[in-house]
């Protein structure tokens, strides 16, 4: 079943400002990162979205959402108890429905005709169960991502059956447990930051939240690993790239990719070349 709801997590106590940063979208219009994500979601067929936010940021988020503010549900995560807990915070919003889960500090840029969200929804149209977007990632980046052990679905080159999920594995563990046939040596299937999850995930999170001790945090990975063991769980390699605007130069890379994907590509390229030509190592800003 194709999800019509989306959940965006943006409740990190330290990084909750990231979705509020302003970029220029591929059409040349200044927008917040949040607005760009929402544009993409609603254009792809999602009907409503919830954002999990840090307490005290409601106004800023409503403002950042721009024209989409009225289709948005803002849910405060009062206590920062982990990513899994943040997702669970949207359980009333999702109800018994499946939903698309995205990261508020990531931008997704498609390299094909369809946006990344639309590609994801296309997969859900033909496959039930949880689906996580993945892309091959070099082992030197494993420390940042959840990684799946998977095998290819016959006759579907970009689909994989997930057998296990490991959060930020070491290359040693990856080599022992997470090798996916067909990928280049030293590359593994890491999460793209976008999932289509069933109501079963919320049920499992509910159970785990109820067992959560004082001060403990709940990740999403154990729940996804559980789903991989207990029901059909697919991974889909999407034609696109993800940009973490929180990492060093992440915002710059996201901005460049957006700019180069639109009508102002030549202008931006010219600027890059000029900047490159005039730059010298060690130049100080005035």
């Amino acid at each position, binding site marked *: 079943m194709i999800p019509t709801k989306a959940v965006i997590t943006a409740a990190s106590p330290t990084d909750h400002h990231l979705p509020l940063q302003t970029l220029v979208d591929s059409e040349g219009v200044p927008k917040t990162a949040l607005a760009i994500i929402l544009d993409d979601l609603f254009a792809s067929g999602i009907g409503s979205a919830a954002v999990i936010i840090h307490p005290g940021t409601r106004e800023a988020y409503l403002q950042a959402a721009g024209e989409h503010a009225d289709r948005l549900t803002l849910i405060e995560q009062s206590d920062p108890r982990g990513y899994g807990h943040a997702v669970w915070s949207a359980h009333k919003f999702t109800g018994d429905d499946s939903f698309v889960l995205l990261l508020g500090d990531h931008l997704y840029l498609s390299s094909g005709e369809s946006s990344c969200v639309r590609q994801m929804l296309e997969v859900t149209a033909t496959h039930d169960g949880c689906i996580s977007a993945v892309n091959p990632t*070099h*082992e*030197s*980046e*494993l*420390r940042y991502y959840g990684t799946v052990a998977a095998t290819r679905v016959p006759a579907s080159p970009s689909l994989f059956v997930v057998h296990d999920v490991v959060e930020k594995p*070491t*290359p*040693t*563990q*990856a*080599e*022992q447990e997470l*090798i996916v046939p067909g990928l280049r*040596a*030293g590359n593994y299937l890491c999460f793209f930051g976008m999932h289509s999850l069933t109501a079963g995930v919320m049920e499992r999170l509910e159970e785990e939240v109820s067992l959560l001790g004082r001060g403990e945090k709940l990740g999403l990975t154990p729940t996804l690993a559980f789903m991989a063991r207990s029901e059909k769980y697919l991974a889909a390699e999407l034609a696109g790239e993800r940009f973490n605007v929180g990492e060093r130069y992440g915002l710059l890379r996201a901005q460049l990719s957006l700019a180069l994907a639109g009508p102002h590509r030549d202008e931006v390229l010219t600027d890059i070349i000029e900047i490159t030509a005039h730059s010298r190592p060690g130049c100080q800003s005035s």
Partner: protein
Amino acid sequence: MPKLLNIITSEDPSVRDTALGEACAELSLAELLEECIELDLFRREAGNLYERVRALFFLSAIHRVHLPPRLPPRRMGYIPFGGQEHLLRRRFAEAIDVFHLAVAEQGANDALSSALAEGYYELAFQTLAAQVRRSVRTVRGHQWMFRMGHPADHPLSIRDELLGPLPDGSRRILRERTPVRMDLSHAGWSDIFFLGMDYPEGARVLNVSIDLGVHGRDPEPRPPIEAHVRVIDEPVIVLTSVDLKATARIGTLGEIFDFAKDDLGLLKAAVIASGVVPPGIEGSGQGLGNLLERMVGPGRGLEVVSWVNGIPKGSRLAVSTNLLAALIGALMRATGQTGSLTGPLRENERRLVLARAILGEWLGGSGGGWQDCGGVWPGIKLITGVPAEEGDPEFNVSRGCLLPAHHVFGEDEIPESSRQALENSLVLVHGGMAQDVGPILEMVTEKYLLRSPVAWAARQEALALLEELVNSLQKGDIEALGRAATRNFRGPIQSIIPWATNLFTETLIARAEQEFGEDFWGFWMLGGMSGGGMGFIFAPERKTEAQEAMARIMEETKDQLQAALPFGMNPVVYEFSINHTGTCADLLEGGMQLPESYHRLQEPASEGGQGADRGEAESGALRRLMEESGFDHNVHEGIRASVRAGRIGMLSNRLPPTTRIEDVGADDVVDCSVVAQGGEEARRRGAEALAGGEVAVVTLAAGAGSRWTGGAGTCKALNPFAPLGGSYRTFLEVHLAKSRKTAREHGVPLPHIFTTSYLTHDPTSRFLESASNYHYDGPLFLSPGRTVGLRMVPTERDLRFAWEETPQQQLDAQQQKIRDSARAALIDWARNCGEASDYTGNLPEQCLHPMGHFYEIPNLVLNGTLRLLLEERPQLKTLLLHNVDTLGASVDPVILGRHLERGHGLTFEVITRRLADRGGGLARVDGTPRLVEGLAMPDAESEFGLSYYNSMTTWIDLDQYLALLGLTREEVLASDQDRLARAVRDLAECVPTYLTIKEVKKRWGHGQEAVYPVAQVENLWGDLTILPEANCGFFLVERQRGQQLKDPAQLDEWFAESSQYVQSLCEWE
């Protein structure tokens, strides 16, 4: 199918386990050669690695043992130099092809068979080693480390717990504490990788993790190994070994991979094998700082400290492998490669640490067995080989997997009471002997692959005994365990390798039996051989008493044997307890600090262990010894000047390149290898001379036998090297037993003289006195050396010549890298010490050297021994001179008769050359027959055109020799020292002076040792053949008579080939 091939490929174990010896027994020469062709074809094409290796071992053994006795007698052979060059460069397959071509030209012969045997043997081990290396690299979880070639790709980062500074500004230290392991049984060395991977069913080890302390020093046992890791605010890696008193600040990637530059090779191997500096980045040209920045953060680095609480080297408790594992474990924890930062490891993590430790051993050029990381696991465990199955990287390559399985016995299997009982009865010791177990492991591997019947049956028995040991433990019956351990040592272990025991061990066991009677329950050998770590089991009520007794017995026995056997340290009794956690980590902070000795090491005044200078007392001892030994300062300074100027040096040892070196002709050599026509007459004449008291024997026993103990400086003559006639016999005893038999057969006492030196005289004298001269009937003399030199630090020129210009056996790639690095460090050492400066940084005995065997007979003249002999028997006419390791040399009446018939002044015995007979030989030099030392050969190839090798055994016509010195019997009897000394000096000036590079061991700390190259000058006996007036002749004798036993690695082969022959010459007291 050819018979031998069938043994290799058969699925039927009863055929597959047929002994090669049995299969060859009934084959003729032609059939055996035909089998060799088939085996050679098979080994070239076989896909299965172990079948290929077995075929190679078959071929090696056939050429070494089974073919030579069938070959036509006296067929001469030449080993092509091209083949030898291939061997030296480790191109074994090419070498074999060259030797086969030579066989096609010359026909099968003894010389070529020796070359083929060597080629096949080395190729077999090379193939096996390559497979183990491949397996190590392809272990899942290792491959990424070989891919990573740039710091930007480094996938690891230090855990936050170690990064964050504490309120006082310091950082937490991660400490890994690891027990060592003792093996109750290794079922016949079944933990050798090759065995485990070919015969996983038979690879079984009973292994116990223990905490350790030194009895009388430490209050209680503790995990003896500690590895510490912490983050520092400098972009370097600081490595410190507290025990070796060595520390290094490493700022470049190249230094990390330079294993032998200092004493920190093991720590460097751990840094690499743990993935902190992955092996793939070697030679990338990248900076260590960049790598550390990515992993630890900008401006930060790591400090790694190791400490083994003073546990001595060679303990047979796998201290170094477990230390490697501890370091790797700590570094893997620190970089998040294990789930747990502290506490014990999980099973899969232990296996990973084991795999990395194996990788580290390979990188560091060492190679422990797969049970050696036992300390990573807790308690008592059975470690077993694992058959390779589909999906394993080893599947279809070898029968077993690289990594074994560990079954840790639970309380329900071995109750706590049994463990306690073991602790209450076992006295664990280190006997103090330092020995290289490597040759033993090679012998075991070869015997296994050849299925030597005795060794194979012993292996099966060892497996059964292991089960018995487990049963005894389960029942808590330690007395039965002790008896079974003793049977294991007496039975299977010594059936496979008789050299696993020695006189020291046997004496300890005998004395324990004598003092404790029925309360001494048993002995067990730890690790690969006895003499170092050992276990003695006693009735529990007498354990405390036994600990004191064993300390005393070991001390006394060591005192008695220390000149004869290589001891590295004083014996130690341990306290131990079974460790229940395996390797375990904790975080230190606040007041908990690194070991105290670490801080002492950081003080600026501290000096490195082995680099520390000798005390004043030792310098004084050296001076005294030099004075006592007749050291001549003027001569020494003259030599030093010549060495510095290059007049004496490795290059000037050589004859000019224009020298014509040719093989001798048939007329130059008298064949005494078979009793031919006229033999009876020669025998009569020899017997007559013997009966008339005209003969004496001189055994050269002044040297330390550097190859025998790797430069340990013990007396080779006193080494109880093998059990012959039911007891361990020293070289000295064997020579006396031969003289005894000769004397009795001819009804006359035979004088026997052992030449000695400052190094061997006192120990030999004491030893003979304690052994009552082995009750030798005839006159027995020791002839002390009268010429001594002081060793020098070599010049860079001579070291480079020795290591770069002289053909050398290249090593396996990783080991070669380590050797190159060590040699570069030693060249630096020589430069820093001062080229041709006096070598004084060692024990006095190790700083001096006898000046070559040229002086041994002159010493008889100078020290009055010859005068005594002549006074005792004026009719003395002939001396038989031979090396201490030429065990087959004897006063054979036929050869003596021939010598007398020919009237030579000096008759040298030569043997036909085999590949191992290196170091010169008999040649026509510019048309004149003479002996040429290997050092003097104008080039490496010349030697390979020679048929005969010099055995050093020489018949000396006393009067002609004295004439050579310009002396008469009367002058010898008159004993005018100046006259005699001048005569010797004059003769010495007629022969060349050589510079040689020797290796000496320097020991320090707890059994630590290092080997240094030193230069010494020598004059050599064989060069008398240069002098026409010496009237030299050359006799060809059979190999068993001329064979020298120079290296313990030759023992097995010598025992099989020559021990019967030698025993037939002996009459034991």
